[in-house]
């Protein structure tokens, strides 16, 4: 008997055959990452949780349309991205999505658990991320926190790689101006 780890592709195959438990296992593998991605682009826990649930529900309903199980992660994040932007548009239909700012810094993301980093730095990071545009912040979250490649980011955001790089480089310049001196001063 040969043992091997159950991969996402195995779970996707079983879930497409109607096995809900396999899909639940898939959800348990990805829910934290998707939740934190949505939390960082919405800056609101309730919204992030609702959007995460919606994204996974849509993923289950459309799982049979996923031809390549190896592309599950970009596909799932694409759904989550669409859900988030759909919510932005519903809340502020007259406003361009680019201009939508997340909630005020008083409700900003806080450090979870017992972090070895001081709270000041986390607050500064959250504040610096808040000052980025929605697109720039999402590019930073997808690259720095979620570790996607440029091509995968372009797929998730449905835009050219050059646009992804442009948003990310601009965001990095802004973040560098704010965060590098603070980190260099030894806040950590």
């Amino acid at each position: 008997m040969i043992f091997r780890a159950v991969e996402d592709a195995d779970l996707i195959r079983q879930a497409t055959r109607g096995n809900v438990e396999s899909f639940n296992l898939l959800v348990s593998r990805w829910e934290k990452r998707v939740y934190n991605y949505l939390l960082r682009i919405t800056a609101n826990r309730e919204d992030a949780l609702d959007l995460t649930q919606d994204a996974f529900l849509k993923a289950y309903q459309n799982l049979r349309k996923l031809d390549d199980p190896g592309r599950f992660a970009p596909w799932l994040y694409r759904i989550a991205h669409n859900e988030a932007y759909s919510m932005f548009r519903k809340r502020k239909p007259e406003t361009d999505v680019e201009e939508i700012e997340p909630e005020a810094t008083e409700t900003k993301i806080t450090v979870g658990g017992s972090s070895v980093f001081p709270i000041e730095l986390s607050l500064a990071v959250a504040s610096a991320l808040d000052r980025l545009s929605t697109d720039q912040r999402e590019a930073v979250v997808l690259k720095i926190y979620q570790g996607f490649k440029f091509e995968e980011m372009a797929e998730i955001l449905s835009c050219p790689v050059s646009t992804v790089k442009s948003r990310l480089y601009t965001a990095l310049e802004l973040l560098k101006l704010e965060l590098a001196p603070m980190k260099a001063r030894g806040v950590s």
Partner: protein
Amino acid sequence: MSCSPFDLKDYFLQELPSSQRVKLEAHVKTCLTCREELERLQLTGAALFSLRDEEIPQRIAFVSDQIFEPSPLRRWLSGFWCSTARLGFASALMLSASIFFAAIRPGPIVDRPAVATVAAQQQIQQQIQQAVSNAVTEVEARQAEKTKQLVAYIEHQNVETLRSVRWMAGELDANRKRSQVRQMAMYVQPGESGEVK
């Protein structure tokens, strides 16, 4: 402004291939400006990573509702129609099967021309024989008619010739008689007149 041969941000974001990474690392060792820029990027990255992931406040799980759950057949059909690969494979399979059965089946389409050819050949042969016999009959009838006419003509000619011969024989006979009469008369005339010629 960076003098690096490759983009320092690409290096920081781990988007450079290994060969370019090596070259850039070699350059950074010798270039103070690029080294400081890369350090700033790394400090920024370290600061960003100070923001840790949160635990999801409520675990997500789905239950199967038998009322809304589609039947296995509907699920299979839905999966079939949503998958271009499966549809393509099914189409190719059907095409292959139809080609295979068309190739191995002794179909009437294949035999029908052979039967039709034999029947047509027999019919053509009959038509040819009929036409030949008709032509022969016509020719024979025409020849018989011509022969009959020729025989009649010859008989007529024979009768004419015979009549001519008879007439000529009669004429000849009459001439001979006339000449004999004339000779007799010549011999008789001097005696009657008393003179001898």
